């Protein structure tokens, strides 16, 4: 909107490159502000929701309903002493928290908030997202390596192994979407969904794989092994304090938010409303879906235990990867047959259930023996 205003006002008055620069700057600042305010809101929502799930109130002292708590926390943490431990690689140590913020923010650049309202409406939006997502592991490794702490290093090693593994099913799950929509452009994907139904329904298997793989890159339970509080203290950011730590903290939430926005764009129809409720502005729909997804992330975090690293790897390579390959073939056949949406949904949903059940049953021979364990023996045996 602002960009349109700038273009309308200054068109003809100022040279074209200046207008392009101005629109770029306002757009970037707008997205930055949106991302940061979302991160603050996300911190509040998560603390409040987890508080409720833990039978607590959550923050409720600073401001109405504790709404100002994230800001108070930010002020507190900035005011703290930034300790640089002995023996760290100073340049890398200082750079890591700054660098880590970039990938999370870059994701927002290609997400269309509303029709035509993406900062960069590039033709290869999906590829861009994948590439930027893979960048996220680099600063984690920088932090872990530079900290001169064994826990940090172990966290960083885990992070690399995990991210590299989960990158593959993540990308492969998106191939099906591209096959169906015939475009890498984010906006085209959304438009396709508005026309033919959400990808969540058309490709439930891909949606599930993407959700799991993306959450594995977010560093939250059940896949927070790179942070693993009860094992590695705080993993890669053990040695960070003060403002540097707050950057890691804020990035975590920005990242969750970026992934939520991505999933709502790719699988939940983005700004699309469906046939009803067209009066509500598109951007509201988009934000509502994103926040809803964020709540799902909070929910899983509050409920599930953490996986072990080898189990997490096995899950990526033995479970998600074969399923995502099967999914690609499946979608290719369905696209070739050119069936109506409802049939595609039915076929995919049934096959997803069958595949997941079957493959899981094939992989685990353990489940049955646990069920057979009886803990109260008959009285005669005692």
């Amino acid at each position, binding site marked *: 909107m602002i960009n349109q205003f700038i273009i309308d006002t200054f068109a003809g008055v100022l040279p074209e490159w200046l207008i392009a620069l101005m629109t770029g700057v306002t757009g970037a600042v707008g997205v930055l502000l949106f991302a940061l305010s979302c991160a603050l809101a996300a911190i509040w929502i998560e603390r409040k929701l*987890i508080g409720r*799930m*833990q*039978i*607590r109130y959550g923050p409720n002292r600073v401001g109405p309903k504790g709404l100002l708590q994230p800001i108070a926390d930010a002020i507190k943490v900035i005011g703290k002493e930034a300790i640089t431990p002995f023996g760290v690689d100073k340049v890398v140590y200082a750079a890591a928290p700054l660098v880590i913020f970039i990938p999370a923010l870059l994701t927002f650049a290609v997400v269309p908030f509303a029709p035509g309202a993406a900062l960069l409406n590039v033709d290869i939006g999906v590829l861009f997202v994948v590439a930027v997502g893979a960048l996220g592991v680099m600063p984690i490794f920088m932090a872990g390596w530079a900290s001169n702490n*064994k*826990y940090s290093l*172990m966290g960083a*090693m*885990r992070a690399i192994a995990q991210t590299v593994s989960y990158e593959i099913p993540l990308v492969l799950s998106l191939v099906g979407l591209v096959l169906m929509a015939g475009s890498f452009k984010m906006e085209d994907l959304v438009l396709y969904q508005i026309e033919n139904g959400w990808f969540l329904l058309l490709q439930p298997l891909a949606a599930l794989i993407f959700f799991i793989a993306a959450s594995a890159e977010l560093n939250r*339970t*059940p896949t*927070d*092994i790179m942070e*693993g*509080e*009860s*094992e*590695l*203290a705080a993993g890669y950011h053990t040695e960070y304090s003060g403002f540097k730590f707050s950057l890691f903290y804020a990035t975590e939430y920005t990242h969750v938010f970026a992934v939520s926005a991505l999933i709502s764009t790719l699988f939940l129809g983005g700004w699309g409303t469906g046939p009803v409720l067209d009066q509500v502005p598109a951007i509201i729909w988009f934000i509502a879906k994103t926040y809803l997804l964020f709540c799902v992330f909070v929910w899983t*975090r*509050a*409920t*599930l*235990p*953490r*996986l*072990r*690293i*080898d*189990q997490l790897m096995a899950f990526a390579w033995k479970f998600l990867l074969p399923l995502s390959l099967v999914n690609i073939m499946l979608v290719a056949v369905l696209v070739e047959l050119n069936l109506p949406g409802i049939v595609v949904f039915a076929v995919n949903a049934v096959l997803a259930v069958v595949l997941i059940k079957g493959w899981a049953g094939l992989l685990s021979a*353990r*489940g049955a023996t*646990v069920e057979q*364990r009886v*803990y*109260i*023996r008959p*009285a005669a*045996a*005692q």
Partner: protein
Amino acid sequence: MVTANPFLVNMGPQHPSTHGVLRLRLVLDGEKVLNVEPVLGYLHSSKEKLQEEHTYLQTVPITDRMDYLAAMSNNLGVALAIEKLAGIEAPERAQYLRVIMAELQRVASHCFAQAVFLQDLGAWGGPLMYFLREREQVLDIFEMVCGARLTYNYIRPGGVSQDVPPEFLPAVHGFLATFPKKLDEYEGLLTKNEILRARTVGVGVISRELALSAGFSGPMLRGSGVDWDLRKQDPYCVYDRFAFDVPLGHVGDCYDRFMVRFYEIRESLRILHQALEQLPPGEWKTPVPIVIRPPAGEAFQLIESPRGMLGYYLVSDGGAAPWRFHVRAPSFLNLGALNEMLVGSTVADVVAIVGSIDIVMGEVDR
């Protein structure tokens, strides 16, 4: 197989999941544990020696500080030992009250054990707090009885410090009415969770033989399938009057220990039902002098605390203070096979296994 240079990691004494100040010197090859050396003594406060300077009645509150998650059981153990030494007989009502308190304490302690075990596995969100909520209810009951929530000093030589208030029975009955349903709910949420199973089944296996030779007791021993519960084998107080079962594990992994604690909570509730029903009226304390001077001799009393066999060994020289005061601490002995359990596992398993032992450092270091 790629191997890296082994490196040493100090897990603890300051670490989120070493349950206080246990220090493990782990030699790691990447994630794999090559060697482990536990270092104890960071919480040593000379409690046993301290007892030798106190009268017998004054020893009771010091035992509160040993296993601070099961202070009632500690009180019970030392009170029984002193009674054995001095030849005091507690009245029947006191015996029942002791059983009720000990079983409530077992429920509270096992709830806490489950909670921190889940936290060690990473489920720090909901499940952790659910168990703590149930523990709070027991602590509320204890507060009603003796005014304290953690260190009770309630069970004393000769009986208990005071009779229970009239609102005690309705409170316990209320707890017994609501708790089993919640327990079923938590069990459904947790034990059928695939991640929890993946993390616990087959992890930290202790064979029957190892458990016996290492001197394990309590859920650690029963998790390995050894039927040994002092409440059955060598009943003290009035435990021989109650019907209850002893849950036993099968292979001795973390899952078995986790489940044994679940079922022990249920059995404790069964005992509580019966004890409340049979609770006789009458005196709650035999009059004993403030300064007890037992005849010269020695006494050893073992009880089944939530963590295992808790023993008190007292030697008297006829004076007002014990000449020697020794505690057989189950937490300490349950750490005995750390090497066998941890070597070959991963860092994440170390946390899960140590969590499943359910140690209290106050008791380990004394």
